[in-house]
């Protein structure tokens, strides 16, 4: 291979004047984590609401949940980001559209919202499956104790369901982190974006991508370890995973 390796490149100053190339990659990592966390919060909130709606006896709520999930699941994430970023401001009234377009950090907010809504469909399906896996008697017992529907979900069904679906939620969170890389297409310079611009400035393709790869693996390892602890902490006594 006639490729010129230069691992020292990370400690050379970058052309943007913001420190070394390593600083550039680390700032990308921070942006990846920030975007992923905000997206994950959005996904959890909307995913929980929609997931619960899909288990309610009301037909209207069920259909709303069904349409929500199908809508966000059947379009590529990239297309959804384009819709949020390029199409939505044009469809809004003029003033609102202009405000959206001039928003500072528009790629960041668009990416967080776009990835968040995309992932909310997946969270909803997981939560629906989690609630569905509970014995029917739980809901009946809650009703028999005089709990309202809201109280039944709040105190009986959801605390169980969320613990059961914790392992699949972990992988959905990892997917959220990975999906933020798609936002490179709307100009979000996160970790993959920084690796790409480092490659363009320095021509050290493989060093840049190796570093980005290692950083992604590290983030994955941290998340997986943290979630293991959380799983053990909230495990339900009496279940296979419980104490």
């Amino acid at each position, binding site marked *: 291979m006639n490729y010129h390796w230069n691992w020292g490149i990370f400690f050379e100053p970058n052309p943007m004047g913001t420190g070394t190339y390593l600083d550039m990659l680390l700032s990308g990592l921070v942006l990846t984590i920030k975007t992923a966390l905000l997206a994950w919060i959005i996904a959890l909130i909307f995913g929980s609401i929609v997931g619960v709606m899909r288990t309610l006896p009301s037909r209207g709520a069920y259909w709303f949940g069904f349409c929500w999930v199908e809508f966000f699941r059947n379009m*590529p994430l990239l297309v959804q980001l384009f819709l949020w970023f390029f199409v939505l401001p044009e469809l809004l009234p003029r003033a609102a559209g202009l405000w959206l377009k001039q928003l500072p950090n528009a790629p960041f907010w668009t990416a967080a919202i776009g990835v968040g809504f995309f992932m909310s469909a997946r969270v909803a399906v997981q939560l629906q499956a989690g609630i569905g896996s509970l014995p029917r008697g739980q809901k009946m017992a809650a009703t028999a104790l005089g709990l309202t529907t809201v109280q039944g979900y709040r105190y009986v069904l959801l605390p169980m369901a969320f613990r059961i679906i914790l392992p699949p939620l972990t992988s959905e969170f990892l997917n959220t982190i990975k999906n933020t890389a798609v936002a490179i297409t709307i100009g979000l310079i996160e970790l993959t974006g920084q690796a*790409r611009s480092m490659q363009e400035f320095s021509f050290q393709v493989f060093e840049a991508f190796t570093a980005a790869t290692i950083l*992604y693996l590290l983030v994955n390892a941290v998340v997986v370890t943290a979630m293991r602890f959380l799983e053990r902490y909230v495990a339900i006594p009496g279940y296979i995973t419980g104490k």
Partner: protein
Amino acid sequence: MLGSFDFDVIRRSLPYLFYEGMTFTLTLTALAALGGLIFGTAIALMRLSGYKTLGRIAGLYVDFMRSLPLVLVIFWFYFLVPYIGQWVTGASRPISVGAFASSLITFIMFEAAYFSEIMRAGIQSISRGQPAAASALGLSYAQTMRYVVLPQAFRNMLPVLLTQTIVLFQDTSLVYVLSIPDFLGAASKVAQRDGRLVEMYLFAAVVYFTISCIASFGVRRLQSRIAIIR
């Protein structure tokens, strides 16, 4: 607003969008699914082979691929494949690989990790008595896999494999980052040339949505039809 919506730009670019763009997307999807399935099955067999090192290598590969964003993997292979080609062919400089070949290799390698997990679950769902009966009949390991285990695993997992293929179909839109004219890339080219972002992106969204919806409806029907009653 929708008052100035220009349907004509869509109509004019239809031949380009579908003959060039959609053909690229569908060919890439089909070949990547096929290649991913073959490699994925091989990886799954490695993991279940009982040889520790072989299993560990396969496991590492799957975990590695699954913890990286597809966009990063696309970039990796785009720059790496010319060098691998040089190494394989012994050429003096990195060989130039076409956009299609580069993205096909990327998607096969990436999807193999996901397909292997599906096939592994499928193989593990076969009851122990089946391979035992096969070896009692005098079938070799290869014959057992070829005639007994894999056909059943494939059949059991067909709906999941097809669902993964729909995900793959949506993921191929990410070759956009290499400026390749797949369906979305073609739509985006027209959009930027004519300044018609709203029309083209909405149209692309509708097309992706329709195809994915019909496909997943088909998978659901297939699932209920081929389900084996036990």
